[in-house]
């Protein structure tokens, strides 16, 4: 139990003195992405190998939070060399232990290699993916075992809390956050200081603070990485917020689809309680505060404040109209302040280093850094944290290393289902709350999905609208019916049943759904449709008028055909076909039975590029199948050989 700031500092010194910075350490990313590629096997392999090579007690391998470079996971960092090894398998472990840990030598083959210069990068900070980021929040993930409070304390954890409780009044804390210009990271971008001030000034003795960790945007996992990787940073922010607005109870609302996050947050709360950061008389300040975890049960709409509150009360999460805002009438009718995970994680940094420090990052109206999950058709999938104001182009090309293969960039979708698609010509806009809105998208919680020429924009709109059809709670009719009708029209268009007037009807539905819905889900539901219409109207028109999908993605509008001139009867597509639709044999040109083809596209992908025999056709008639007798391939070269043999 730590009872004063002095004791906290003493504890930190004790932890540090027990740790020799020169001693070898192995950190393995144990985030969701790396675990899926075998990180836990790598950790076990390290522990077994360390024992085998007689280093027990000298070095320990620990699982850490996610550093973001999911594309090359499992990621391993070996200290003190700071060697960053990528795509490590258990088979690599003996070599790492023998070379790096014992001999202080770098295992070159596991390092990042620059694709153009072929130069190797030893440290994280030398890799272009990391070099161009500003990792104020997720930078600590690889240094911390999320299940160890000591790791967090060693990095100065909970010192912001001590500072707030002992050196600042609650007004000063709110003022510092207001001055920092921090805006809500969950999507809305509302100034955090103003929100806190409203809850602080609301009448009432019982108040609540809540962490909104109901991250539901498909393709976004920023909050998950912070929850799993550095849960104490969120708790510290929450306790500071509770002190600022005068709350004694708090909740962390985590979706149950994140079991590791739930586990790590639960452990962190227990440790915080044991050490005197939660409970009665925190750090001897006289301030009482405690936290409970509430699991979300799988409803996207519960990310909306008022729905989340009802869900916390044990009811179906159906939003209500605002005002009254939760700041005055929230959980159980009491003043409540709800912030997103990343917002809370910024708070200790602001309190410790000051609003001016925070202000140096970002643009005039969007301060600080923002974490994005950069995914889709991108070489470096992962989490990236950048100062507000960098351009989309820099994120996609400098950090993400562009589009894989020889494909062309088409659009980047930001902001989740409520967001929009941004085409090539707008890639130089700076990423900030207001600029993205001007381009027809939103910042949202940080999803950034890159799309290439093979992505159909009408299908993307249909995808998001379909998602929202399922997630609309059904309480208000504009959202329930409007989204459903938009989905019906979009499905018709992608399946070749589009007709003149569909685009206008979509626009009309978008307008009424957007203006008449009760909560943000319905109000922003038209965005995917409107933004694709704004930038890619010609794709809609091609689908409707020509029944053509320019991206060859909508399967009802696409056929696959094997060019008999190019087919070399290699049998690859014949074997891989998932619907047994390909007729063929050795030395016989392969033919697709159009009636059987399920248009999965496998044949197109597996056909060796030196043949390129499989073609995609859209709005073009498929040539009839080659008559049986013409399918035999007579191989000239082979024929010659045979001739020679007979001579």
């Amino acid at each position: 139990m730590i009872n004063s700031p002095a004791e906290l500092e003493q504890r930190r010194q004790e932890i540090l003195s027990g740790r020799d910075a020169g001693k070898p350490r192995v950190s393995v990313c144990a985030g969701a992405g790396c675990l899926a590629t075998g990180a836990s096997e790598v950790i076990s392999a390290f522990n077994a190998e360390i024992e085998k090579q007689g280093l027990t007690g000298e070095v320990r391998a620990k699982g850490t939070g996610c550093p973001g470079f999911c594309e090359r996971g499992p990621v391993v960092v070996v200290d003190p060399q700071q060697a960053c090894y990528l795509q490590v398998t258990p088979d690599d472990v003996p070599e790492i232990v023998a070379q790096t840990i014992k001999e202080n030598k770098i295992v070159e083959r596991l390092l990042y290699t620059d694709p153009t210069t072929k130069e190797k990068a030893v440290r994280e900070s030398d890799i272009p993916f990391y070099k161009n980021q500003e990792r104020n929040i997720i930078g600590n993930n690889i240094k911390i075992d999320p299940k160890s409070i000591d790791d967090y304390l060693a990095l100065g954890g909970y010192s912001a809390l001590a500072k707030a409780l002992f050196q600042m009044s609650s007004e000063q804390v709110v003022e510092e956050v207001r001055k920092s210009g921090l805006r809500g990271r969950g999507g809305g971008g509302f100034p955090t200081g103003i929100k806190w001030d409203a809850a602080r000034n609301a009448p009432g003795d019982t108040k609540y603070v809540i962490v909104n960790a109901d991250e539901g945007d498909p393709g976004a996992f920023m909050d998950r990485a912070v929850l799993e990787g550095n849960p104490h940073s969120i708790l510290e922010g929450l306790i500071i917020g509770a002190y600022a607005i005068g709350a004694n109870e708090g909740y962390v609302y985590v979706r149950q689809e994140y079991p590791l996050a739930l586990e790590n947050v639960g452990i962190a709360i227990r440790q915080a309680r044991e050490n005197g950061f939660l409970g009665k008389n925190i750090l001897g300040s006289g301030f009482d505060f405690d936290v409970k975890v509430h699991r979300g049960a799988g409803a996207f709409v519960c990310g909306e404040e008022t729905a989340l509150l009802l869900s916390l009360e044990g009811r179906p999460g159906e939003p209500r109209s605002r005002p009254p805002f939760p700041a005055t009438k929230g959980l159980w009718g009491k003043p409540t302040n709800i912030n997103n995970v990343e917002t809370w994680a910024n708070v200790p940094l602001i309190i410790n280093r000051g609003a001016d420090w925070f202000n140096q990052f970002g643009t005039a109206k969007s301060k600080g850094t923002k974490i994005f999950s950069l995914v889709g058709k991108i070489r470096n999938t992962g989490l990236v944290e950048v100062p507000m104001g960098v351009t989309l182009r820099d994120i996609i090309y400098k950090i993400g290393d562009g589009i894989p293969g020889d494909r062309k960039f088409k659009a980047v979708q930001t902001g989740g289902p409520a967001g929009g698609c941004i085409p090539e010509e707008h890639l130089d806009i700076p990423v900030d709350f207001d600029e993205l809105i001007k381009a027809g998208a939103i910042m949202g919680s940080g999803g950034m999905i890159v799309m290439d020429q093979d992505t159909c924009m009408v299908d993307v709109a249909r995808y998001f609208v379909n998602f929202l059809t399922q997630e609309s709670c059904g309480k208000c009719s504009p959202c329930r019916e409007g989204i459903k009708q938009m989905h019906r029209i979009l499905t018709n268009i992608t399946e070749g049943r589009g007709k003149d007037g569909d685009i206008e009807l979509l626009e009309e539905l978008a307008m009424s759904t957007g203006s008449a819905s009760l909560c943000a889900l319905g109000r922003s539901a038209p965005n995917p449709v409107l933004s694709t219409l704004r930038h890619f109207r010609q794709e809609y028109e091609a689908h409707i008028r020509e029944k053509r999908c320019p991206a060859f993605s909508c399967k009802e509008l696409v056929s696959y055909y094997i060019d008999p001139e190019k087919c070399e009867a290699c049998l690859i597509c014949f074997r891989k076909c998932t619907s047994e639709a390909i007729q063929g044999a050795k030395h016989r040109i392969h033919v697709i039975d159009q009636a059987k083809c399920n248009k999965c596209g496998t044949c197109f992908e597996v056909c060796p590029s030196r043949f390129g025999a499989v073609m995609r056709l859209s709005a073009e008639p498929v040539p009839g199948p080659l008559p049986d007798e013409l399918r035999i391939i007579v191989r000239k070269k082979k024929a010659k050989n045979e001739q020679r043999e007979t001579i």
Partner: protein
Amino acid sequence: MDTARIESIIDSHDGEASSLIQILLDIQNELHWLPAEALQLVSERLQVPMSRIQHTATFYKAFSLVPKGRHEINICMGTACHVRGAPRVLEVVQNITGIQPGETDPDMKFSLDTVNCLGCCALGPVMEIDEQHLGKLVPDTAAEVLKKYE
């Protein structure tokens, strides 16, 4: 159904009506579905009408009112997986198992569901079978994988 187990779940939440969702989640995790008798018991113990329990159990996607098969397949339909071809994977899995998302086959072998994001987008398209992740799927590898399950 193990009535004592359900009772102890309810007790662990102090029988509070506000813990309804948490109690249902615990039962779901334990039994992999919510049998009618369990809901009846929850209703009686928490003094919450059955209509509200039904409303809650059908509102949230984590709950299932029908039993699940031996193997639970979750296909990620997150945006990253979608643009990388998840619908094609889903279609093949549907063809092989003969069931749609949300359904269980008559032999109780597979239950199929779609999820919105498993958080490992670098591996997309991703499918999760019995909590094991399978990444970078194309239709024919997905078809191959399913053959392993009995």
